[in-house]
Each structure stands twice: as C-alpha cells, then as structure tokens.
C-alpha cells in the first residue's frame, strides 16, 4: 500500500475548524487510512490505491473535514474560460499515445513541502491508475514559461531539448539511456521511431511524455500558474488522473482555467459530476441498519458527495475524481463511513448450517495421530522449494520440473514433487540436535498434467546410527494398518539414486504402487552432511485414504 507523510500541524491548518490533534488521529482510520508510524508531529499514513486523492495532505484534509462535520458535500470546481489556452493534437500520436488532456491552474502558491507532496502524488498516480505510466502519465509545468497554443505531436529520436534536472540539451535516445526515468519507463514507448512530444508555439519542447518534462517549465515555489497535462492511451483514464490533480490543487488554493483541446478525437475535458440513483433499501439489506433517507443523505455528504432525497430514492452526485465508485454498492460503503463504522454494532445470528471438516482433513488428522503415537515429530516445509534440494542434492530425475517465473528468492523456485528431499534438508539442519530424530510431513506435491496435478503425500524419516530398513517398514505398515486397516506389500524395485542399492522397495496396496521406502544412500547423506543412518518412506495419500 502506498504511503504518504503528513505533518499534523499542517493538516490541522488545512482542516481548519477547531479539530484537535487527537480528533484527527482518531478519525484517520475511519477514512480507511492506516497510521503506519507516528514521530512527533510527523505521521506516516498508508492509503488504499483506489483513493489516489489521499496521496497528499490536501486530499486527506478534505476527507477529514467531512467526517468531522466541518465541511460537507462536494467542493465545486468552477472552470473559467477567461484566457485562451489551447493544445492541438497531431494525428501522428494516434499509434503511440493518442490522448492528451489538461487544464490551467491559476493564482496559487506552493511551498517546498507542497511541491514535494505533488511530486510524490504524481509517482503514486503513475504507478497505480497510470499502470506505470503506460496507461496515463502526468506533467506539471510553470504555465508562465510557456507560449500557447501547444501542440501534442511526435518527433524523431534525434530531437533535442534540455530535460528536467539537467542543463544540457540531450537527444531522445540520450535521455532514454542517461536518465533514471528514461531507463525505468523507456519500455512504454518501445522502439517507436517517433516519440510523443509537447511543443509550445515557439517550438520549445515542454514535455516528452511519459518520460520527462523539460527543464524550462520546472515548477518552483515561485510558480503561480500551472499547466497540468495528462497523456495516455485511454481518454477516460487520462481524465481520471487529471480530475484527481484538479481536486488536490483546488484544496491547495488554485483556480482553474480551461485548456481547449482539439484534434484527432481529442476534446476539452469537462470533469463533470455524475449522478447515481440510490435505493435506500440497500442500506438495511447490506449494512443491517435502518437509516432514514435524510440520515443517509447526511452520511453521503460527510463523505464529500452530494445527495438529495427524491421520492423513495436518493439522488447521489459523485465528483469526477471519485472514479472508484462504480455503483450503489460503493455508495453503501460511503454511507457506512459517513455513519461511522464504530456506530455499527456487530450482531450474532445463529448459524442455520452445520459445519463440517473436509474428508481429506479428517483422514489426514487420523494418520497424523498415529505418526505422533509412533513417536514422530511433525515438520512443515514450503511447497515452493529449490532445484538444489529437490533434485541436485538428492540426484533425483528432474524431467518433470515445475518452475515459477522471476522468484525473488532463490530458495523458492520449484514446486516440489516429493516430500523426502525437504525432510533430508531438515535433518541436515539439525545435525547438532540429539538423536534419534524421527520426522514426518503431510503436504501437497505437484506433477505436470492438465495443467497441474496436485496430490497429498505423507513422508517419514528416521535418523540415528542403528536405524535400518526393517524399522521403517514396521513403521510404514503400522501407519497404514492403524485406523485404516490397509495392508501393504513391499516389492523389490529398480535402483534409485536416493536409496542405498538393494535396500529399498516400492510400496504396493492392492497391486497399486503408492510409494517408496528404503535406506537413504550414503552419498546422498554426505551431500546433506548427515553423519548417521537415515531411513524413510513416502506415500501418496490421495486415492488411498481419501479421493
């Protein structure tokens, strides 16, 4: 979950009213924000990726005002058309990044902390709804450094400009190789011959979306008017992103002027609210509480939505940046938040069903009981293990190996097809503990086929100097005999690397092979640095004691 850093005094100021520190800290979790840590006035908050408006203190303050009852309902965002700002879209962008949207934020003031927060917000938006900048990406510019109208077009890779955080002109290729953002996000534009570029009327490069802005238009604490541009492969998601930034900048004190967008299926963003008709019966059906429509309306308003009662229904107005709201079910949650989760009391209704364990569990419990009765200690190993343990150290056949892609942990790359290798690994890690060591494990093993076969196996090992084949065979027979009354036979089998030659067998029940048993070969024990005798067996329980 993404994290935002807040200063409690700044939040108090933004919330205004007379909210105390304690009230704010108490209410934050009820907005769905987890307080990760608190260090004096600095608090770290985890927010859900579905609420990108909570990526800055401005957005959080807006939410707090609602739940604290300081300000309710939608903050209206008037968009003026005083000045003529425009951007024209060239058809060459169609194939690579067809959409641009934007707005001009005016008459605002940003301090260093606000700029830092906006930058973090941008990164969170890029990662989440921007899908790592592929779907949409955002650029903020000092509008006073730009000569309008702008053109959104493409340029060849030899095109040069001074990118952000640099003071020399670089070509597109140089930017993609030399800058960190170029290396991280170059993949988005793949090998396109011409790349997206925003130019101003004097042919200055403003931005190279979705990679980097130009140094010319950098936003500083002296910036008063900001151009926000969002480019992307989907018009609506670009406008989603724009709407979040607009709502945050509005709380930061900016006003807005339209940016006229034309050309190539692009159009000026409207950032309009939408309405959803809500049937108040959902409240009692879903939440289990009875609220009058007017109370529901208040709850919705506390969540910074607008609502009014219309006959038996509620008309709810959703601001553009709340694109996390899909339908009435989302409004139920808003009502619950507005009402206060703490005010909804748990209710224990008697169960009308009778609970039951699965047969697999019941049977596994039985064999576990016998194993413990016979003096075995249960171990639990990962199903995802390593090639080294599964195949290399045990010299097992690896033709049926099932790997996962790009594991972050080298010890966890292969799905196990047998339990014995991990049990040997357990013995290997415990050579300093007292003997005898008697271990067992019940677990899922995997095999290839339609598309993956999963079955539950059971394996046992015994380690101490005098153990031998007879002992493990006696244990195996007892485990199957007790409770299950299964009689088993052991039959000489062809040599296997895992077992000492001439001292192992296949286990059969009713003419069907269910496993293998034997003394572990000394060469294998050496691989595991085990300096005592080890015997063991492994059987497939699936199909034997349950289906």
């Amino acid at each position: 979950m993404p994290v935002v850093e807040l200063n409690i005094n700044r939040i108090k100021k933004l919330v205004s009213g007379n909210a105390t520190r304690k009230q704010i800290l108490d209410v934050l979790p009820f907005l769905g924000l987890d307080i990760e840590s608190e260090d004096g006035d600095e608090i770290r908050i985890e927010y859900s990726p579905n609420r990108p408006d909570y990526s800055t203190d401005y957005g959080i303050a807006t939410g707090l005002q609602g739940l604290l009852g300081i300000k309710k309902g939608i903050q209206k965002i008037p968009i003026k058309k005083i000045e003529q700002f425009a951007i024209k879209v060239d058809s060459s962008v169609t194939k690579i990044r067809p959409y641009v949207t934007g707005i001009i934020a005016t008459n605002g003031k940003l301090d260093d902390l606000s700029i830092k927060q906006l930058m973090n917000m941008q990164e969170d938006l890029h990662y989440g709804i921007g899908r790592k900048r592929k779907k949409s990406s955002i650029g903020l510019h000092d509008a006073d450094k730009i000569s309008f109208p702008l053109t959104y077009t493409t340029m060849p890779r030899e095109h040069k400009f001074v990118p952000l955080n640099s003071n020399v002109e670089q070509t597109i290729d140089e930017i993609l190789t030399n800058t960190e953002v170029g290396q991280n996000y170059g993949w988005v534009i793949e090998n396109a011959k011409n790349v997206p570029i925003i130019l101003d009327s004097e042919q200055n490069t403003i931005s190279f979306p979705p990679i980097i802005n130009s140094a010319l238009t950098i936003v500083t604490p002296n910036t008063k008017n900001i151009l926000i541009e969002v480019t992307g492969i989907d018009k609506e998601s670009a406008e989603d992103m724009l709407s979040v930034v607009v709502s945050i900048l509005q709380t930061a004190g900016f006003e807005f002027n339209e940016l006229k967008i034309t050309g190539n299926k692009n159009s000026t963003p409207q950032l309009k609210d939408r309405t959803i008709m809500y049937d108040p019966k959902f409240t009692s059906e879903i939440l289990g509480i009875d609220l009058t429509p007017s109370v529901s309306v208040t709850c919705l308003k506390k969540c910074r939505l607008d609502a009014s009662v219309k006959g038996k229904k509620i008309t709810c107005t959703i601001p553009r940046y709340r694109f996390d709201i899909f339908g009435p079910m989302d409004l139920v949650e808003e009502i619950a938040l507005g009402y206060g989760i703490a005010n909804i009391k748990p209710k224990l209704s008697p169960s009308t069903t009778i609970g039951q364990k699965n047969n697999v569990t019941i049977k596994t419990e039985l064999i576990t009981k016998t194993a413990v009765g016979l003096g075995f200690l249960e171990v639990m190993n990962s199903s995802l293990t390593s090639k080294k343990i599964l195949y290399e150290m045990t010299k097992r056949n690896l033709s049926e190996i099932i790997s996962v892609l790009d594991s972050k942990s080298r010890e966890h790359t292969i799905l196990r097809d047998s339990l014995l290798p991990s049990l040997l690994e357990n013995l290997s890690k415990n050579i300093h503990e007292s003997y005898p060591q008697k271990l067992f494990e019940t677990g899922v093993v995997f095999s290839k086929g339609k598309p993956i076969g999963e079955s539950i196996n059971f394996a046992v090992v015994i380690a101490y100097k005098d153990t031998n084949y007879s002992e493990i065979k006696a244990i195996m027979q007892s485990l199957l005999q007790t409770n299950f009354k299964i009689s088993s036979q052991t039959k000489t089998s062809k040599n296997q690397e895992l077992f000492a030659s001439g001292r192992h067998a296949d286990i059969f029940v009713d003419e069907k092979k269910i496993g293998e048993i034997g003394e572990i070969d000394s060469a294998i024990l050496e691989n595991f640095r085990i300096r005592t005798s080890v015997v063991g067996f492994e059987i497939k329980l699936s199909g034997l004691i349950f289906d």
Partner: protein
Amino acid sequence: MSQVFHDIEKKILETLQKVSNQTPEQLSKNTELSIDQIRRGIEWLRLKEFAIVNESEKITFSLGPNGLDSLKNGLPERKLINMLKDEPKTFEQIRSALSGAGFNVAIANAKKNGWIKIEKNNFNSLVSIKEKPIETPEEKLLSFIGEKTVSREEITNPLAMKILLSRPNYIIQNSQKSKTISLTDAALSLDTTVSSSGAIDVEADVPSIFAARTHPLQDTIDEIREIFVNLGFSEIIGNMTQSSFWNFDALFTPQDHPARELQDTFYLEDIESKNPATSSQIKNVSSSHNKNWKYDWKLSESQKMVLRTHTTCVTIKHLAEQKPENARIFSLGRVFRNEKVSYKHLVEFNQIEGIVIGNNTTLRDLMGIQKEFYRKLGLTKIKFWPTFFPYTEPSLQTMVYNEKLGKWIELFGMGIFRPEVTKPLGIDKPVLAWGGGIERIAMLKYELDDVREFYNNNLSWLRSV
C-alpha cells in the same frame, strides 16, 4: 525393617564405621566418591537419622608485625623505660628516639602502668622512672605465643589477649569452620552387607527426551479450523495452482493491475489452463471487466497459471459452480506471494477464508461472526476499521488489542463481494467473505517475532515450544 541404601550411602556408612568423625574431604578420599556425591549422601543419611553433622569453629592466634617486633625489642613502653634507666629525659629527647606513633603509645601505657612520672617546667616536660617496672601480662603473652600459632583454648589470660588485640597489628586472629561427620548409635551397629541395595539417586540429572508432537503452526491451523466448523462453516479444498481467471479475473482484478505482475505473483513457467472456466463465465467476466475497467480483456491473460495469492479463488469457484442458496463454507491452505523473505514476510503462508450466502448476510452479521471468532480465540478487545479490497465492498479489517505488545494489531479482513464479482458468475445474493493469514495469529500465540521460525523446522524449537 530392612533399610534400603544407595551405593553412596553404603560407602559412607562403611567408612565411618571404621573411623568416626571424618570431614567430607576425608570421606571423599576414603570412599573415592566425588565431593558432590558425598554431600548428597551425607544429607540423605542425616535425614534418615543415621549421620550427625558436627560443625565447629577453630580460632587460632599468631603474632603480627608489631607483635614480632615487640618480641625482639620490647613493647614501646618497655623501650621507653630502657631509655630512662640512666637519667630522666625530655619529651623532645624521647620523641626523637621513639619514632612516630610509638611515642604517644609508650608515654600513655607507661603512665597507665604507673611506671613514669612527668614533671613540667617552664620550658619542657621531663620524664623519669617512678617505680621498678615489672613484666606485664601482655609481655608474658607475647613471649608465650612467640613465633608459634596457638589456639584459643591455650590462652590463659584472655584479658591480656583482648588488650593486645586492641593494639593494631600485634596479633593475627584466624578462624576456621570445619564439619565432621559421625554416625548415630543406630548407624554404628548397622550391618550394611545385609541391607538390600538397589536404591537409586533420585535427584541425579537424567538425559532429556522429547515428546513427539504435531507442528505448532499445524496446531494453530487446526484450532482455527475447529472454530470455523463450530461457527457452522464447512470446509472445501481447492488447488494451489490456479488459472489467472479464478485467482484474478473472477475477482474483478483488472488484467493490467500491478498486483498481477510477475514481481508480486508467481506464474508457472510454460504452463497454461486451456479452459479455465465455462464459456458463459468467461463471456460474463470479460464483459464486466471491459465495461467497468474500460480496457480490452484478453482470454490469454486469464489462462496463465499462477500459485494462488489467496484462498478466495477456491471459494468463488465453489460458489460459481454450486450456486448454493444458503451456505457457510471455508477454504484453508497455502497461498503464495513473490516477496523477499524476511522476519515478517514469507513467500508461502497459510490463509483461511470463509463465506456466507443466504440468510443474515448484512455487514452487522459479518461483524458478529468476526466478534464470535475472536472470542473463541480468547481475543475480546476488538474493533473494526474500514479498508480496501478489490473484490469486496464494503470492506473492513479487524483490529485486535494485544495486551503483551500494548497495541492494536490488524488481523482478519472482511467484506461483501462486489456485485461486479458475483453477478457475472450468476450469484444473485450478497456474499459475506472474511479471512486472513494464520501465521500472524500463531506468532502471537507462540510469541515469535520472526515468522520464518515456523518453517525452519529447528528441532530445538519444535521440541521445546
């Protein structure tokens, strides 16, 4: 009554019957038992009233440096008298002859003994012999001790000793505590050869053995499963390997969502599920994605096989297939995340998830089930906070107060399946869902702060926990 003796006791008895009053050290030497065994044996015999432990303290005296000097040259007051033998002397003369503190001591004691008189004139004090000085008891004692060590019993004049002890560094006093063991009359006449042997040292250390047992994490899993069953839930079991369709698509996770990337989810190499679901399920899920997430849903993405990231894929598939009218079911098992392993993260851990469909399926009912679940685990201080899960709405998380840690801890999550999840699969009623990781609860139970301990299979931990 025949007595039963341990071999240690027998050896001590036999030795003491030959020679009484031996110290433990002597007994150890004579019986060839260790001093610890002797101590234990003596204690057992004492409790059985066969041995008497005599404790005594021996005090001895010898001369210290000042004492030895006085033995040779006389006490300071004797030195003074010797100086005055021929003629009286002034303080100045005496002081220069008797160095340091000796002067004051000599004057004071000689005066106390009545040996000297002091006349003061205008300029000086003159000291002369008053009486013939006889040998004092202290002087007698000094020469009696001489260079020997004598015991307190040998001293005939305790007053003189007291005086000498009060003078610094004249006498060295030593005290030694000793213990000797003797036998009671009953023991002296015991015939140890007829008393039966075979008693054992019931206090000696024995080798450790360890109980065979189930794994502590398995115990927690079983405990939690039992609570679910008691709450009316029935267990279903599903595969750990799942198609992306059931792990993600059916749960309304868009195909370009970051959680679906390789770096968070384990994809199986070169393995696909050709027909992950029925054609109508695929059609409905696909159109729900296209409509709500506004992108181009692809079948190929949903065919990729993953290690399940939650057990929800098992429950939702069960619902979609069985379409029960009224049911409480749960699924429990391993789930996987492609994470770096650390003290708080595993790539593979256990999760349980229960769902309720049918009657009493409001958020309040869900909260009630949670409260009862935690009560059965012994956790009574709980509260609910809103949270976000992609496939439930509304969504809550339970916060449980941990007394030992003194803080609120996030445990299970819960919510009502979004209609975007249930509708495409033909499920019309609200479905409550709740669950979470089991290791977290087991960590609290066993007071572990490193979750990896559960899978280390360290025998010293498993045998002792």
